[in-house]
């Protein structure tokens, strides 16, 4: 796929992941607070990066760090959904764990001079 197509599909993944709980909450007339909008932003970023990584399945499917990153991003999206449904912003700190893991991988790969994030 072309770079523009990759960005487009990742954005579509992020939009799908972040709008699903918002449509649910508005459909059942649940209160929508700042915490809920924050959760929409958090789950958009989670869905975007998840789709972006999933598109590179063919390159990395045998790497443990890649599979762990996918699983952690899935858990991150679930935590942000939890924060949206319970209106409990602390859940977004759990959701940030996956991002911290990916940033750490990037820093390690940069320091050791590797071409990609997924070192093992």
């Amino acid at each position, binding site marked *: 796929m072309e770079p523009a197509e990759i960005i487009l599909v990742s*954005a579509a993944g992020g*939009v799908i992941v972040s709008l*699903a709980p918002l*449509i649910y909450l508005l459909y059942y007339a649940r209160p929508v607070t700042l915490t809920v909008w924050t959760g929409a932003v958090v789950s958009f970023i989670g869905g975007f990066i998840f789709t972006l990584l999933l598109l590179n399945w063919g390159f990395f499917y045998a790497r443990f760090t890649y599979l762990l990153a996918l699983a952690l991003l899935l858990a991150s999206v679930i935590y942000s959904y939890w924060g949206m449904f319970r209106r409990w912003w602390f859940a977004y700190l759990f959701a940030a764990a996956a991002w911290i893991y990916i940033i750490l991988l990037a820093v390690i790969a940069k320091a050791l001079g590797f071409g990609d994030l997924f070192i093992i």
Partner: protein
Amino acid sequence: MNWVAFLVGVAAGMAVAFGRVYAERLVSRYFGLPQQVLFTHRDVLVPFLVLATAANIYAVWITVAYGGISAWRLSAVLALTMLVAAQIVQLHIALRPTRRDLELALISCTPYVYLFALYIAALAMGLYSLWLF
């Protein structure tokens, strides 16, 4: 199956459905009535908007991208025009919720009926193209 068109279509459809439930919320707040009382067919219309917008975007995308020069045949141009018109009607359903939403939704299904008729005709005539005229 073009997954790019499919995912973009589903995302756009969910955006339209979100617009619908948000507009319902604003209207029901204005009148101080619950949404189920004001909009009786919302359980049908919200999923319909997702599916229909995804179908419109997918149909337009594959017609223009894979049709080549045959996308300019009269039947194809007619299909594209009907799909754009249906999308406008569906945006109207989403952003201005009224009591006649279900009728409008039925009217906006005409391009799918037209495409299905073309498909049946192409099958009956043994042709490999949907764009018969």
